[in-house]
Every structure is written in structure tokens, then in C-alpha cells.
């Protein structure tokens, strides 16, 4: 491959990469992959790739004198960078599906990155506005857990039941993303509901009820005494960002 065609291919791939990132930001599906705090950085990178592609493309025209000189192992390096673009174009953009919880496991604890000591903000939220992550954080960092007993709960998550729970219990799970999907950790709150049998594993539900305390392995955990469990469509933004 001559330097000239090599530069053209580099420019093409960089331009596609930039446009791919920008289009994912435009459609909002970039949040299927990364935490929202990185979106601006990715936006800048998208612009950077497009600019870089432009520079390389003009360089291609001006490098006439070195047209004959070969480019080092460009073919294989160019091929690798095409993989993310093609995977992005070919595989439908979908968030991590709840079935991934089988491989990844589910935690009843707040993830490392969510270990904030400051619960004041969470306490000021009305109880029905708190997410699964908020509740688990509150229970990890509050001194007095009794204050939550009897508070109303209204959370959305996917159904996950495993052998460690009793027959009338299931978990309401959500994935939390610290940086990108690779660090996705499933968090779950235990809910008690008489008609667990009718719930489909990994399907999305909205659970309403009251908070109670449950002692498990010497620790106090939140448990939802569910009054209603209704099937809902997967939320637009399926992850929670700590």
C-alpha cells in the first residue's frame, strides 16, 4: 500500500469513527455504553477524529513526492480500527440486557464508586422518587435505619430470583455504570410478593409498596413489602449512574 492510499484509508476510518461517535451522541444511544459524565469528552473526541481525518485527507494530496514510499504494516492496523465501526453499524444498539445478570452476579451492596458518605441529598428526595441505587446507598450509609420503615416505595427494575431467596421473594435489579458497560454491576433490592410465580425472570416491573427491614447474614437490608407489581416496558435509560 502506498503512503497515499494508506493516508486515504486512515482518513476514511477516522472520519467514520468520528461520525459514529457523534451519531450515537445525537441519538442518545451513547448512554447504552458509557456513564453520562463522559459524554462531553466523547463529543470532543468525535470532533477530533473528524478534524484529524480532514488533515490526513489534505495531506494525502500534498504528499505527492513520497507517493511511491510504502506504509509500514498499515493494512493490518487499519483493519483493527474498522472493527468497532462495523460492530456499531451491524449489531442493533441495545443496552446490556437483564439476562447478563446470570454471568455477572447481583449485589445487595453499593458499588465502590457509589460510596458517598453524604446522604443528605438522598434524604431530601421524596421516598417514592428514590431509585434502587438510592435506597441501597441510604441503607449502606445511614446510622438510623428504623426511620425508613413504613416509607412508601416506587421503584422500577428487572425481576431476578435465585435459589437463595424464599418462595415469595424476588429481587428488583438495576445495572449501575461507573464508567462504561464493562464495569456494570447489578444491584438488587429484595421484594416480598405473594404472587412471585407469575413474574417472568428478567422482565421489567414497577414495584410499589412499603419499606421494611430484613436481617440477613447479620446485616440489616431493605425489603419491599410489595402491594402491587406491574409489568412495564424497559425504561429508556436502563442504567443508573452513581
Amino acid at each position, binding site marked *: 500500500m502506498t503512503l497515499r492510499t494508506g493516508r486515504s484509508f486512515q482518513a476514511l476510518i477516522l472520519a467514520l469513527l468520528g461520525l459514529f461517535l457523534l451519531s450515537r451522541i445525537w441519538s442518545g444511544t451513547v448512554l447504552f455504553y458509557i456513564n453520562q459524565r463522559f459524554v462531553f469528552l466523547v463529543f470532543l473526541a468525535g470532533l*477530533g477524529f473528524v478534524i484529524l481525518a480532514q*488533515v490526513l485527507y489534505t495531506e494525502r494530496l500534498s504528499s505527492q513526492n513520497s507517493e511511491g514510499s510504502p506504509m509500514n504494516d498499515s493494512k*493490518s492496523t487499519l483493519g483493527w480500527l474498522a472493527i468497532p465501526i462495523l460492530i456499531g453499524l*451491524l449489531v442493533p444498539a441495545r443496552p446490556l440486557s437483564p439476562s447478563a445478570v446470570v454471568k455477572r452476579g447481583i449485589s445487595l451492596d453499593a458499588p465502590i464508586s457509589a460510596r458517598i458518605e453524604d446522604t443528605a441529598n438522598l434524604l431530601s428526595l421524596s421516598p417514592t422518587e428514590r431509585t434502587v441505587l438510592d435506597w441501597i446507598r441510604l441503607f449502606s450509609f445511614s446510622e438510623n435505619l428504623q426511620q425508613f420503615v413504613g416509607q412508601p416505595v416506587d421503584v422500577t427494575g428487572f425481576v431476578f430470583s435465585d435459589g437463595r431467596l424464599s418462595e415469595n421473594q424476588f429481587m428488583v435489579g438495576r445495572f449501575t455504570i461507573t464508567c462504561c458497560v464493562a464495569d456494570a454491576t447489578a444491584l438488587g433490592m429484595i421484594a416480598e410478593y405473594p404472587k412471585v410465580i407469575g413474574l417472568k425472570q428478567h422482565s421489567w416491573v414497577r414495584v410499589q409498596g412499603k419499606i421494611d427491614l430484613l436481617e440477613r447474614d447479620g446485616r440489616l437490608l431493605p425489603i419491599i413489602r410489595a402491594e402491587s407489581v406491574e409489568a412495564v416496558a424497559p425504561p429508556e435509560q436502563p442504567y443508573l449512574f452513581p
Partner: protein
Amino acid sequence: MVKQNPASAQGWTVRLIPQIPLVILAGVITLAGLARLQQIFNWQGDLLLGLTDGIANFSAVFLGIFIEAAPYLLLGTLASGLVEVFFSAEELVRLLPRGRFLAVGLGGLLGLFFPVCECGSIPLARRLMSKGIPVPVGIAFLLAAPVINPIVIASTFAAFGNTPIFWLRFALTLLIAVGVGLLFLFETDMSRIIRPMNVDLAHSFHLHDEHEPKNSPSSWKGKLKRVMIIAADEFFEMGRFLVIGALLAALMQTVIPQSWLLSLGQGPILSVIVLSLLAVLLSICSTVDSFIALAFSNTFSAGAILAFLVYGPMVDIKATLMFLRVFKRKTVLILIVLPWLFTLVASAAINLWVR
């Protein structure tokens, strides 16, 4: 075109390497096609549903790592281009302190001013040494610079925040780099450590100014253009390892149940060995490896994560290949084994006594 390439003489393995992306692509296209068909015809069935779910999750994890890491890789390669175009090694030689111990310690911190990752630090260290910087200083720089530089500090902070892992990564790296550098003070015969500079090195390391006249662009515009071209070349060169690393990490996450890894990941010493070897195999650029480390942080012990973050940037497959072209075999062996032993001891100690 293949015939012009001297590497093709080395046999079929070398010729096969460029085909790997094609093979992966073919696999991805087939699987993605299946996922589309399933979507269109709404096929049911547990096996197919499981398969398409797996593909969707695999691509979500892969793209997650890639999209997250791409801005940092771009920053790193731009910085490396800036160093390449605007920096003169002779000036640095003059500024270095006379005291040898002090100089080696400073060598470990030089990366703060030259934000290059391991791909940039090896050629830069070699050039510094050839321009008169003592070998121990060059080696301390070589080992520390991929981690102790502003971009890696930023990306590690983005991933881990103000946690012990963040601070320990930098402290331990500096300690090991300076320690190994000081050991080289005992060897006075330079020719037993480094190979003579060879011309083809410039090609493989993308040191453009050695085969293109450096004085060609004198205007600011021309210089900036050169910065960007070097950055683009390095982005393709290094982006390859990021893609491979992300593919492997995504595959591991979608295929292997976490409970299996957990059994490997919790032994205080075994977990350190496993992750430090994995760091070598994955060869992920130091600017982005903290995001991949974060993916392991739920399964592996804290010491193992630290070993991944400290040893990975010093030694990995691509660094070893570059080492072999700069140093004598014996030196390369020392550069690989010593940091590994240091990392192993320090990380295992943290696992055993701190927790």
C-alpha cells in the same frame, strides 16, 4: 505488496496476523446477521434468544470500553506528537542534575512533562539515552513515564476517583521504576545494556523525523499538521491493541460466569499472578487500562487490580517487542522479571496485611 515486506520471510504466522481482523469481522457479521433476523422475524426459542442476547451484550461491553477509551487514547497520541515535534533532547541533558541518585529519581518523574504512554516512552527513552542521558535515568523514565504522566493521572482518577488504588498506583510505579533504574548504576559498560541504534527502528516506532528531514515544516501551521499526522499514525498503531484488549475483555465478560473468575480472583497471591499476566497478554495502553481494570474490580482482589495497573504499563507484549530492539537480551530479561517480582511482593503484601 507482501513481497516487499521483509517480515513475510519469517513464515506463515507473520503473514496470518493481518488476516485476524478479517476473521473476527466475518464472525461478527454472521452473528450480527442472526441477531437482525431474530429481530425481524421475532423468532422465539431459548437457544436463539440466548445467543442474540449474548451478541448484544458482547457488543455493548466492547463498544463501552472502546468509546470510553477512545478520547483518552486520542489525547495520548496528540501529546506524543507534540513531544515529537516541539521538544529537543539536548536541552534536557543540560538541565539534568549532576548527582546520580537525584537524577534517577528525577527520571522517574520526567513523564509528568512528557505525556507519552508505553508506546511512546520506549523510543523516547532510547533517543534520550543516545543523546547523553545516563542509562539508569533513561530506564527509570522508561518504566515510570507510561503511568506517571498527566493524562494517565486524569484517566485513572476518572475511573477510580480518590481511592487508595489511585494513589498506590503512582507510588508503587515510581518506587519500582526508580529502584530498577538505581540497579543499573552498577553497570558502567553501556554497550552491554543497549544495542547500537539501528536505522529501521525509526520505521517501526514511527519516529518520523529520522527518515523525514526535521527542518521541513518551519511554520506553526506546518508543525501542527505534523503533530496531527504523527498522532494519527500512533492512534492506528496503538488503537489496535485497544481493540484486541476490548474484544478479549468483552468475550470474557459475556462467556465466562463471574463466579468462575471469582474463585481465581480472591486468592491473595493467585489473583495477583493472574491479573499481572493478563495485563501482559492484553497489552492495553496505560491511558485506558484503568477502565478495563475497573471492569475486573468486582471480581478480583484490590492487590490484583493494583498489580494490573502497575505492571501492565511497564511490561506487555508490545513493550517487550520494542524492548528487544532497543536493549540487549539480558537487559530485557531484567526489565521484565524485576518489576514483576516487585509488583508481586507489594500487591500480595497489600492483600495479606492491609485488608
